[in-house]
């Protein structure tokens, strides 16, 4: 890889459920010039220690819609919204309203509910045809039903909002008109949902946010309220579903590792963490930031002011931090990966996602001890043109 000639980003995926080639070699340079799917330029910070440091650096703004930031997609603004302030202090004030719902105690209170949902989905899988398709039978419905429960969204709406969210997250899959229709449709749907809730408040998260907003509209305006509901609904299931799918695919592709885990389910938490580090469904596109000033990296390389910057999740493969980073080691300790980011924008739903992944992994291995990929790992197809690239279909048998 040469620093002078920009490379296309995201990098090509490996043919098997494994770490892509470029993830292993990209750290030769601390800063890589890349071209986004839109054709716009950006720089990728490749080394773990720089990444970790810059996640806490306020010279990198998250207000990408307020500055001349490069676009991810040519026809979709994705998460950019000039009306939302994503930098401190405003961002932290809003975030604190939401975060109380994600404390360890609140997440653990949800665990039995998640287990119940997982059991019911596995009952249906067991009664259905084999091979089963893991994404539709399990990986998608589990986090969707969980986030519906948490937010207080009627589960019967899921087909409707799923289509709208798929369109909302299109990077190149849909036309301008289709993207616009989905973005408008999703916003309208959420507006109606919130209005409906106003009349019938419950103990769900949307109701809680409505109460906060009614008490102090300065703290959370109706627009901000709707924006957070949108963010939580999207983040609450698409990422988790993709990670459940790729986690299981990565694991089942390595039968000896899967066998080791089956023999000792006490390893599930560290295995989940390692599968999060080893994630091959996301990219660093979600970390897009705008450099408000020149910023120097640890080796002296400078990110010029005005650059569009990505903080590399591929730094999970940095061998100066992780021993044998390309080996899936389900017993790995000190696994401080960058999959959830770091700093003040650390993934709000990390504890929820982790818990769902633990329930899903343990549940599947317990219920289906003979679980295996029904096609070779090389044949698993990825969805095209979306923001995330887990597997479109994962046929499994047992």
């Amino acid at each position, binding site marked *: 890889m040469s620093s002078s000639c920009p490379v296309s980003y995201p990098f090509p995926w490996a043919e098997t459920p494994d770490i892509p080639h470029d993830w292993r070699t990209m750290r030769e340079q601390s800063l890589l010039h890349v071209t986004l799917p839109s054709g716009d330029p950006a720089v990728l910070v490749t080394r773990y220690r720089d990444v970790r440091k810059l*996640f*806490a650096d306020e010279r990198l703004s998250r207000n990408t819609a307020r500055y001349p930031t490069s676009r991810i997609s040519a026809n979709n603004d994705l998460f950019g919204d000039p009306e939302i302030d994503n930098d401190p202090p405003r961002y932290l004030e809003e*975030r*604190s309203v939401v*975060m*109380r*719902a*994600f*404390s*360890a*105690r*609140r*997440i653990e209170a949800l665990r039995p509910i998640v287990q119940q949902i997982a059991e019911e989905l596995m009952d249906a899988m067991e009664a259905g045809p084999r091979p089963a398709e893991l994404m539709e039978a399990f990986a998608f419905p589990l986090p969707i039903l969980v986030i519906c429960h948490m937010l207080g969204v009627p589960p019967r709406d899921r087909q409707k909002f799923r289509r709208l969210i798929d369109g909302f997250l299109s990077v190149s899959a849909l036309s301008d008109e289709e993207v616009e229709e989905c973005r408008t449709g999703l916003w309208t749907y959420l507006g109606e949902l919130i209005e409906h809730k106003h009349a019938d408040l419950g103990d769900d998260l949307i109701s809680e946010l409505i109460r906060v907003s009614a008490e102090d509209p300065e703290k959370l305006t109706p627009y901000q309220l709707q924006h957070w509901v949108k963010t939580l609904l999207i983040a609450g299931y698409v990422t988790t579903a993709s990670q459940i799918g790729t986690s299981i695919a990565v694991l089942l592709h390595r039968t000896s590792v899967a066998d080791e885990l089956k023999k000792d389910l006490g390893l599930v938490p560290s295995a989940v963490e390692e599968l999060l580090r080893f994630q091959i469904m996301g990219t660093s596109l979600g970390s897009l930031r705008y450099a408000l000033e020149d910023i120097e990296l640890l080796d002296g390389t400078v990110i010029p002011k005005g650059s569009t910057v990505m903080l590399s999740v591929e730094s999970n493969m940095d061998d100066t931090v992780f021993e044998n980073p390309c080996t899936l080691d389900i017993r790995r*300790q*000190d696994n*401080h990966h960058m999959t*959830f*980011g*770091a*700093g*003040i924008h*650390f993934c*709000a739903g*990390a*504890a929820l996602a982790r818990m769902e992944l633990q329930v899903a992994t343990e549940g599947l291995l317990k219920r289906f001890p003979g679980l295996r990929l029904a096609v070779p790992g090389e044949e698993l197809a990825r969805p095209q043109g979306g923001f995330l690239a887990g597997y479109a279909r994962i046929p499994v048998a047992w």
Partner: protein
Amino acid sequence: MSPTVRVTADNETCVTSSLCVYRVPEVFDQDEEGRVVVLDSRPSADLLTELHRARRSCPTRSIHVEVEEAPET
């Protein structure tokens, strides 16, 4: 004698990752808002390895662990 351990946490910069609570529940908890609370600011030195893991994993570096070696007798 084992060393004296002191633990402090900054709940102003806490972003509710919950990592410390899962890692060392004897020492860390969260308030109603989800922000870090130190339950035991002088925990047993037996917990040091886990305390350092909690410190390193904190996404906003909000946890501090100090170790005072016991004076030799």
